[in-house]
């Protein structure tokens, strides 16, 4: 798929093609490319050098909104990108920033409106690197980022700078430089969601081209005329993509309706038709591998009894369902499929159940989208399920967490789940365990205090049986469950402190009677008591010093850890082969 250019200093490779345009069909648009070892995609934020001052460290930040190459003639710059600019506060004259409240240290302003300085066409080689710009706007359309994301981002933005009126605005229009703002906000779910249906819209509307002083004026004007002509060809392309979109939309809708039977059948047969022989074999393997639990038998019953909440019981149980619906009188088939869903074996069944994107070729796109939907809907599933079971497993409601936890630990049902997002809640953890591992559980997030690592979350999870806990741990160990923040989950058996009051606490010394007359029992020593001329004040200060030192050391260590983690960030988006 790529056209490597061997004659350039820095290596280059094209990524995904989009469509062809231009008057003479000599322009090829792309969705991504790899340059100098870094992969860039549409709507990525990049750093761009200044053409007038080639060696300055002051780089501009921009978003790629179009990528193309002229295929016929070896023009001066065959590969070009259109960049929508971000303004640093330093780039805007101070008097324009006067009334603007709270400009953060790494805040940028997105260019908007119309006029010079909005966006420019530049040769692709002007790009110096990628950066992360997180949108912190509270706009409803913007998927809100986590605190962690904000902290680790290179830049943030929440406002725009209108180049036409030279003002900073808080509200963001629906389109900027012809690009739907949905692409400029943070990416929500899988990339594929944004594919055809929306891109169609974007392409149809015009792109007002403007020039920034250090762009390429000559090329720019050429671009404009070509852009307009491209639109007509876009329309043709769009009708094709719309079809695909419809098909996906159809499968999406199919899931949302509660006519499980037919739709499930359809989808299932569609999927299987797209499959190779390989997955089939794997499935059989799983069947033989399976250790049928009583737990697994419960599940399908639950699903059918759940009535018409319908499609929710999709995603992972989807395979189980078909097993159920279709031939209840073929027990072997049902069992196989059930095992698939229940996923007794580690990574492998996860592969078959969820990897149509890797195996199925025809419906690749559609499946990715529906899979992503599956995952999300999987989240929904829990809300429905948990209630009935929760009542069953804890038979007297007031039983506090502590007791059930200790019991669970004794029976080896207690698991410590690590590397969660610290902002998750206990409920969400339960949901994740259910949808990803198919186990009912109760969870409790561990509080993030001054003595715990702040950039990662942990939770204690109680499973219903020892096997369930073991299973979960094994699966998470062997395989790799990736959450949307790019974190793979880690699980171990939890070991908790035995109950009872701790006898030792450092730092409280019994002062003799001849000294201050204060009752330790009473305990209320106020600021009045510790005047600077008393011994206890001095000692208190020593404690403060000790605390400050250990705090500092701990925070430094955590910061270092965070950096290491950042450098090892795993891509959540599935890369299609």
């Amino acid at each position, binding site marked *: 798929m790529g056209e490597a250019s061997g004659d350039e200093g820095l290596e280059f490779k094209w990524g995904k093609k989009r469509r062809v345009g231009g008057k003479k069909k000599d322009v090829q648009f792309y969705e991504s490319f790899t340059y100098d070892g870094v992969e860039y995609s549409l709507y990525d934020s990049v750093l761009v050098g200044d053409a007038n001052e080639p060696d300055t460290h002051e780089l501009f930040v921009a978003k790629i909104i179009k990528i193309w190459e002229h295929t016929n003639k070896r023009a001066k710059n065959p590969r070009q990108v259109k960049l929508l600019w971000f303004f640093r506060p330093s780039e805007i004259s101070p008097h324009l920033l006067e009334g603007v409240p709270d400009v953060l240290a790494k805040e940028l302003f997105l260019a908007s409106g119309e006029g010079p300085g909005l966006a420019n066409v530049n040769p692709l080689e002007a790009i110096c690197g990628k950066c992360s710009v997180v949108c912190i706007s509270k706009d409803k359309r913007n998927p*809100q980022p986590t605190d962690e994301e904000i902290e680790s981002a290179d830049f943030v933005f929440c406002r725009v700078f209108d180049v036409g009126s030279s003002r900073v605005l808080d509200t963001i229009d629906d389109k900027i430089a012809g690009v739907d703002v949905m692409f400029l906000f943070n990416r929500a*779910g899988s990339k594929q969601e944004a594919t055809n249906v929306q891109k169609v819209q974007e392409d149809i509307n015009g792109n007002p081209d403007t020039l920034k002083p250090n762009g390429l004026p000559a090329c720019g004007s050429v671009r404009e005329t070509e852009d307009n002509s491209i639109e007509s060809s876009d329309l043709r392309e769009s009708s094709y993509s719309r079809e695909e979109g419809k098909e996906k939309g159809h499968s999406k809708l199919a899931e949302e309706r509660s006519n499980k039977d037919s739709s499930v059948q359809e989808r299932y047969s569609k999927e299987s038709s797209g499959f190779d022989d390989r997955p089939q074999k794997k499935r059989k393997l799983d069947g033989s591998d399976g250790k049928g639990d009583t737990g697994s038998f419960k599940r399908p019953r639950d699903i059918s009894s759940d009535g018409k909440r319908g499609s929710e019981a999709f995603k992972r149980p989807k395979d189980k369902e078909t097993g159920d619906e279709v031939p209840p009188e073929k027990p072997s088939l049902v069992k196989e499929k059930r095992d698939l869903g229940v996923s007794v074996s580690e*990574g492998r069944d996860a*592969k078959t159940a*969820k*990897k149509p994107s*890797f195996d199925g070729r025809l419906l690749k796109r559609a499946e990715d989208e529906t899979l*992503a939907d599956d*995952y999300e809907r999987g*989240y929904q599933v829990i809300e429905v399920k948990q209630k009935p079971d929760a009542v069953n497993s804890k038979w007297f409601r007031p039983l506090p967490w502590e007791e059930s936890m200790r019991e669970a630990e004794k029976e080896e049902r207690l698991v410590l789940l*690590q*590397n969660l997002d*610290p*902002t*998750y*809640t206990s*409920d969400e953890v339960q949901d*994740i365990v259910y949808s*990803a591992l198919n186990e009912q559980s109760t969870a409790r997030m561990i509080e*993030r205090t*001054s*003595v715990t*690592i702040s950039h*990662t979350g942990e939770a*204690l999870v109680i499973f219903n049986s020892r096997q369930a806990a073991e299973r979960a741990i094994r699966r998470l160990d062997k*395989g*790799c469950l*990736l*959450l*949307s923040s790019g974190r*793979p989950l*880690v699980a171990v058996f*939890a070991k908790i*402190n035995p109950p009872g009051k*701790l006898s030792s606490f*450092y*730092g*409280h*010394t019994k*002062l003799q009677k*001849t*000294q201050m007359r204060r009752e330790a029992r009473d*305990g*209320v*020593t*106020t*600021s009045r*008591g510790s005047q600077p001329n008393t011994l206890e004040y001095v*000692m*208190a*200060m*020593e*404690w*403060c010093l000790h605390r400050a030192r*250990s705090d500092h050391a*701990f925070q430094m*260590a955590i910061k270092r850890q965070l950096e290491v*983690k950042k450098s090892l960030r795993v891509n959540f988006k*599935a*890369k299609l082969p």
Partner: protein
Amino acid sequence: MANPEEEEGEEEKYESFLSRVRRTVYVDELTPHASKSVVESAFSQFGTVKEVIFLPNYLGPKELPTGVLIEMESEQKAKAVIETVSQFPFMVAGMPRPVRASAARPAMFSDRPKKPGRRIQFRWVDPSDDEFDKAQRVKRLVRKHTAEAAFMIKKQLEEAEELAKQQSETVTTHHKKFEMIDKLTYDGVAQELAGRYNMKCGPPHR
């Protein structure tokens, strides 16, 4: 998808949770011997204490000092508590180790409501995917980090123990000194000596 009414309810819940967070002070370095009433009465001098939640220590080392969340009636009161405690050593249920107060954060509440409108997604990574290795490395890294943090905490505790021992020694030697001086004045030895050297002496204790 969650219908708009549900979402609104969620948002409201989350907002009220956030305001609760703002009213709450996180106090740590507290002795585990302090009971709820002790803590309450200690902090009630700043204003009414609405709620005291003890943060359990399930995974940390046994000797870790206790942390507690104290909800005051308003955000200003909470801020006042934090300010005072940060400026002057405030000791609760024993001395001289003072407690530490800071603003509470949502992550400190284990029973918090979820952030409205957030959807979590996941995927199982195929071993043939090139991300798989990276992910396995990340997992190992997580374990490493946990061990590191545990080690640091342990070191902290050891230093605290050292300091406490030192301080108690200082206290006892001071005490001995005072006792000695007291005894001397009581016995009249000090007066005698003063007379010998033609110096003044403090009031005689008889």
